[in-house]
Each structure stands twice: as C-alpha cells, then as structure tokens.
C-alpha cells in the first residue's frame, strides 16, 4: 500500500479553475484532500474602504466573468433594500430577464467544460458555439459580452425595446431546438455514461449534512431553490425546481441541461408578463447615504448566493460580503473526492461547477 501526495492545481491541463488540492493517495484511491485557495484572491472586499458605494457596483460585477450579472444585481438589490428605494417595474423585469439569460450562458459554458474534461472536444465546441448566440444577445442589449454594467442603484441603465425582446425570445427558441440535439448526446452517449454514471454519488442525507447548494443539492433530490421565496417578481412566474434523485455526476449534468430548458421557458413567461410600452421609466434617482445592514439572497447558476452589506451613513460602506455558492459547495466536493479513483478527480471537481474567482474575491 503506497502513499503518495499529489498536488493538484493551480495549473493543470484538465482543470479549468485554479483550485489547489493536495491529494493523499493510497495506490490509485484518494484518501484525503486538503484545499488551498488564494491564487486569485484580489482583496475586492477590502475595496469598500477606497471606492464609494455608488461606484462599488462596477467592482462587484468584476468579481467573476461568468456570474457577473447576478453579482451586480445582488449588490444593487442590497443597497436598494437598505435605502428603501422603489425600483420601477420595467427595470425589475428587465433585470430578471437578463439574469435568466445569464444562467443559460453559464450552464452552456459548464456543459462544454464538462465535455472537455473527459475528452469530448467536439461536444465542447458545439456547446460554446451555442453560447456565442447568447453573448451576441448581451452585446446587443447591454453593450458588453461578459461584463454588462447595466445595473445601477435604483434601476437599470439601458432599456430594451419590445420588438427587441420578441426577437430575443425567437432566438432563444431556435437555440432551444439546437440544444435539444446536443442534450440527447449527453444523455445517451455510451462513453459519457461510462465516465459519469455512478461516479461521485452524493446521497440526500449527505447533501444536507454538508450544506450543499444549487444543482449539487438538487441532483440529490433536495428541493432547494432561492427563487421559490418569491422575491424579485418570481412569485408571478410558474416554475418548479428541477430535481433528480440519482446524485451522481450524470444526474448533475441532467439537472443543468433541464435548467437551460427551464430558463428559456421562464424568459417566455417574463416577456409575456412584463409591462409593455416605450418610454416607461427604468430608473429612480437615488439621493443620500445608506445606513443599516441587510442580507440578500439570490439564485445564481451555481446555487444560493448570500450578500451582506453594512453601511454607516458615509459614502464608503463598512462591509460588503458575497458568500458565493462555490464557497458553500467546497466541503461537498472534498467529501466526494475522498474514496474515489484518481481519474475521477477532475470530473468530480468540475461537477460542483467551481467558480474560484467568485470564491476568493
């Protein structure tokens, strides 16, 4: 029985995110894993002492490139709740439309990376080609492909005309059809099934014990989704969280694929329900300084994100904290990695959808 220690990361050909895991192996089985983060730690939360709260939104949305829209939205929602700002309806609908499109983009990115991790590069390219359509939608409506800068305290900065929204819905439908063909490959290809089925099984009891969030928990049958609280106009939409019971890597792939379909359906509902007309207000002017503290929760593509903002009446916030879903899922990942083969480690790490930029801020 030979014991070796392999340092996995921060640079590794198969690892898309710079996490460092020191793996303790006995022959080919992993016995223990010790995480270190900090390769991407930029100290963004310490910038509240240098950047005024009106401009902190730009810093917050640059925490991560994939989850950028929801970070900006969460920060603005937190400050608006402290200052009791009433955001116009059209702005609130536009925000959640962009948020759901951002979710589609994030899941497509992950599906591509997942395929690349076990060597299926062809599928990786197909997923990312579909993702380009979404990035074009973002560039047309917000001005940027990855960093959008459309959220402002009190509303949004750009409006999207009704005809443009109908065109977006049509494009998403086309994307949905192309996506269905790719989804069939994920679900039925024999090599994918070999690599993912039965790997990294997280039972429902274990998912609760390690406090997993997001698709990680939903694939084990835990019905957890922050959108069910009904805030941010989600109480006017009909949807049911996507659940699977198997709890292995394949179940997590299926959950994310079904969520892409669900998001396309949600955008349909939103565009149908939002107030129509040109020239509706999209922003309320905000004056004064915030004072107070709040916790705001949102559902990012990777799970539940908790924002804590504390303000003390000056133009610099006292504390801003983003507890991102990957931070909450790292203990679940470590639990899964123990006892698996070395070849399965990259698949398991990828299956929590790691976003280390968000985790380390």
């Amino acid at each position, binding site marked *: 029985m030979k014991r070796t220690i392999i340092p996995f990361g921060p640079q590794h050909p198969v690892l898309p995110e710079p996490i460092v895991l020191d793996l303790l192996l006995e022959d080919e089985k992993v016995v223990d894993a*010790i*995480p*270190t*983060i*900090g390769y991407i*730690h930029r*100290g963004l939360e*310490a910038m509240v*002492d*240098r950047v005024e709260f009106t401009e902190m939104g730009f810093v917050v949305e640059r925490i991560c490139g994939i989850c950028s829209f929801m970070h900006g939205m969460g920060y603005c929602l937190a400050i608006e709740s402290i200052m009791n700002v009433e955001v116009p309806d059209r702005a609130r609908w536009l925000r959640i439309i962009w948020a759901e499109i951002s979710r589609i983009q994030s899941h497509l990115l992950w599906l591509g990376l997942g395929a690349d991790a076990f060597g299926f590069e062809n599928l990786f390219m197909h997923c990312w080609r579909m993702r380009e359509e979404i990035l074009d939608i973002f560039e047309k409506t917000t001005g940027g492909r990855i960093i959008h800068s459309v959220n402002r305290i009190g509303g949004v900065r750009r409006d999207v005309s009704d005809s443009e929204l109908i065109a977006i819905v049509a494009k998403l439908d086309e994307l949905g059809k192309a996506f269905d063909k790719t989804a069939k490959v994920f679900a039925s290809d024999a090599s994918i099934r070999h690599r993912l089925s039965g790997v990294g099984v997280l039972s429902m009891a274990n998912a*609760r*014990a*390690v*406090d997993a969030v997001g698709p990680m928990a939903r694939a084990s049958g835990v019905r957890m989704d922050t959108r*069910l*609280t*009904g805030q941010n106009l989600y109480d006017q939409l009909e949807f049911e969280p996507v659940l699977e019971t198997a709890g292995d890597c394949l179940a997590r792939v299926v959950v994310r694929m079904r969520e892409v379909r669900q998001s396309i359906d949600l955008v349909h509902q939103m565009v149908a329900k939002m107030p129509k007309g040109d020239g509706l207000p999209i922003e309320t002017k905000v004056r004064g300084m915030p004072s107070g503290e709040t*916790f705001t*929760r949102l559902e990012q593509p990777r799970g*539940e994100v*908790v924002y*804590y903002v*504390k303000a003390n009446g000056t133009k*610099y916030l*006292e*504390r801003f*904290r983003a*507890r991102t879903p990957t*931070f*909450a899922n*790292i*203990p*679940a990942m470590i639990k899964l990695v123990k006892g698996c083969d070395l070849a399965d480690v990259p698949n398991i790490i990828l299956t929590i959808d790691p976003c280390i930029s968000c985790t*380390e801020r």
Partner: protein
Amino acid sequence: MDKAAFLARVGEYHENGWRLAIINATTVPSPDEATPGVFEISWGFAKDLEFETMRESVTTADEVPSVSEFFGAAFLYENEMRELFGINVTGIGLDLQGQLYKTSAKIPFSHAAVKARLEATAAATAAASGKKA
C-alpha cells in the same frame, strides 16, 4: 460571550433541520482611542424559505467556539475568519493552520489595517479636491 449558551442555540438550529448559509465578520472601527475595536460576527441559517441570523460582538482577545461539531461545512468560514480578521476561533474541524489564503499582507481586515486604508482614502480625496478646485 457565553459559549455554552451559544453552542446550545446552534445545536437547536441543527436539530430542527436548518442549514448553515454564512458566517460573516465585520470590522467595526472604534469611536475613540479608549474603547477597543470589535468584530461583529453573524451566523446565518436557512431552512426552506426562511433565513435567520445570530449575532455576537467579540474582540481579538475573545475565544470564539467553532460550530464544526454541528455543521461540518463551517471549517472554510472559520479558517477565513482567523486568517483575514485575526479572530481567535478554537476547535475547527479541518484546521488549515493559516495556509488557506496565503495573502502577502497578513490579517488585512484587522482594525489597524482598515483604519490605515480609510485614512489613505481621506488623504487622497483631500489632495485631489485641493488640486482640482
């Protein structure tokens, strides 16, 4: 802080099926030179659609017990609190001994560091407005 009562309440949350959502620390600057600065620590628990928090105020001299015996996932938050804030958390389940973040400036959120940053910003804005006006 009363450690036994605190752990009893955390145990109750665990028994009733709540999930640990966040442990956050805030550096509260002290209003004058005499009083020592405090850290406000919030423990956030979530269950179904609800979210509740517990709050304690501690100084660097106080010992904060770890909640790892109830919520195994707490080790990340507590290691971070120790490394970035200098709060003395005892009994963490997986203790990474200061190796989690590896920042070049140690304890970046201590009271001294936060005060230095705020003063530097005030000096920079004063210089900029003096030059521009």
